[in-house]
C-alpha cells in the first residue's frame, strides 16, 4: 500500500484475470473480479482506496456494471465507511461503457452509483449530477495545486453559497464515495469543520 493523499492509502489493485474483450457478466473472470473487489473493500481499513485496473481489458457495459455495482452499492449504502473504489482505465476505452452500466444500475436500484475513473484524465463516471461534479472538481483542484484539503468554508467562498449549503454538497459527494473526510479542524470562535480530500 502507498499513501495517496492525506489520510488515504491505496491498496494493491484488483485486476481481471484474462485480458481482451468481456461481454458475459456471469463469466468467471467477471464474477471473480466482482468478488475480489468486494472482499478487498470489506477487509480494508478505513481510509483505503481499492483500485480496479483495466489495462488491456475491454468491458461491455453489462460487465462493467456487474463488477462495480455491488462494491459501489456498499459504498453508497454506508456499509464500508471510509473505503472507496476507483477505476484505472489507461486507454479510456471502457469509460463510456462504465458510464452507461452505472447509470443503468443507478436507475434500477434508485440510488446513484458514481466512480472516479482515471484514464488519460481523471473523471467521474456514472449517475453524477453537475453539482456533485463541480464539488469534486473544486476539491480535486485544491488538492492538485497545493496539496490542500477543502472545507465547507472554502467551498462556500468559491461558489458563493452559505456554509450550510457547502457542507451539504461536501456531505453528498462524500456519501457517493468521491470525497473522504480526512481531517477535522477547529475553527476560531469555536466548533470544528471537516477537511475533505478527493478520492482518486
Amino acid at each position, binding site marked *: 500500500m502507498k499513501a495517496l493523499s492525506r489520510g488515504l492509502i491505496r491498496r494493491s489493485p484488483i485486476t481481471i484475470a484474462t485480458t*481482451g*474483450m468481456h*461481454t*458475459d*457478466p*456471469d463469466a468467471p473472470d467477471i464474477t471473480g473480479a466482482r468478488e475480489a473487489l468486494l472482499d478487498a473493500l470489506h477487509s480494508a481499513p478505513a481510509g483505503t482506496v481499492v483500485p480496479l485496473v483495466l489495462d488491456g481489458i*475491454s468491458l*461491455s*457495459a*453489462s460487465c462493467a*456494471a*456487474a463488477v462495480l*455495482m455491488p462494491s459501489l452499492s456498499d459504498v453508497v449504502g454506508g456499509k464500508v465507511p471510509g473505503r472507496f473504489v476507483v477505476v484505472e482505465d489507461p*486507454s*479510456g*476505452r471502457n*469509460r*463510456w*461503457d462504465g*458510464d*452507461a*452500466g452505472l*447509470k*443503468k*444500475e443507478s*436507475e*434500477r436500484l434508485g440510488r446513484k452509483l458514481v466512480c472516479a475513473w482515471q*484514464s488519460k484524465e481523471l473523471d467521474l463516471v456514472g449517475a453524477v449530477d453537475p453539482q456533485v461534479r463541480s464539488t469534486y472538481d473544486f476539491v480535486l483542484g485544491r488538492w492538485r495545486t497545493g496539496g490542500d484539503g477543502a472545507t465547507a468554508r472554502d467551498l462556500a467562498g468559491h461558489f458563493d453559497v452559505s456554509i450550510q449549503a457547502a457542507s451539504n454538497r461536501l456531505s453528498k459527494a462524500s456519501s457517493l464515495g468521491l470525497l473522504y473526510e480526512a481531517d477535522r479542524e477547529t475553527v476560531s470562535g469555536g466548533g470544528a469543520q471537516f477537511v475533505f480530500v478527493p478520492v482518486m
Partner: protein
Amino acid sequence: MVYRCHVRDTLDMSALPQLMDPLLQLHGEARASSEIVLDLSGVRFITPGGVAPFAALIHSVYEDLPRLHLHAPTDAECCRYLASSGLLQLLADVATIHGADVAMGIRPGSALNTVLPLTRLSQNADLEDLLTQLELKLDGLLGCSDDTWTETKCRIISAVREICANVFQHAGGTPGWVSAQKYRSSKGNPFLEVSIADSGVGIRRSLADRYPEFAVADDGDVLVRMVNERLSRHNPARGCGYFTLQEATSKLDGSFRLRSGSGEVSRARRSRQLVRADGRAAWPGTHLEMRVTCAPD
C-alpha cells in the same frame, strides 16, 4: 407455384416484408416445392437495414429453401453496393442470380463507405474481430489516432458490442448478422447506419424464460416494456443492451428501429418518445437498425 416479390426504389428494413413474406409464410413441402423470384431490379438504394435482416431471414429458411431467383438491381451503382455489402455473395450460394455478372467479382467491403460488410456472428471470437474492424474504420472516419477513445467512438462500439452480445444470449444458437455503412445527410453531415439481425426465437420468447406471462403476450407490448424497463432474461442487473443503444442514439443525435416477431418500435432523432408500429407479419428473430451521427468529437 411461382411467387414474384419485388421492391422498388429502396431496400431497407421496412421494404423487406413485401419481399420476404411469401418466403416466410410458406412452410414445409409448400415452400420446398415453390419457386420464388426476388426482384430487386427496380432498387436504387440499399441500406444496412435491408442487408443484415435479409441475410438472417434467408438463414431462417435455409433448411427447406425453395428454388430461389434473384434479379439484381439494374442500377449499376446499386448493384455494386449489393456486392460490396456482401449480400450478393451470400445469396449466390442459395439462389440463381440474374443481371449481376459484373458485380459478382466485387469484393465485400471494397466500397469506400462500407464500414462493415455483411458479417456473420457465430461465436465470441467473431464479435472480437468485428469490433476490431469497426474500431479501425471509426478511427479513419473520425480522424482518431490508434487507441484514442473518443466519446463518439466509444458510444458506437459500446452499443454494437452490447446488442451483438445479446444475439448470443437470445438467438437460441442461430447466428447474427451485422452490416454498417457511412452516409452523408442532405445537409452534408456524416452519419453511420448499423444493422444487426438474427433469426432466433425473438425477444418475447427469449424473455418468457424469466417472465412467463410473456409466453402469450403481444410482441409489441413486450418490446415496449423491454426497452422502457430494461428487462433482461437473466437477472435484473443485466439488460444494458438497449440502455447503451439509447445512450448512443441520444448522445449522438441518432435514431433506432427494432423489430422482433410481429412487434416493432422506433425512436426518431431528437425524440424521447418510443413509437410503436402494430400489424406487422410475424417474423423469426430480431432486427435492429441504428443511425448515429459520426463526426469527430
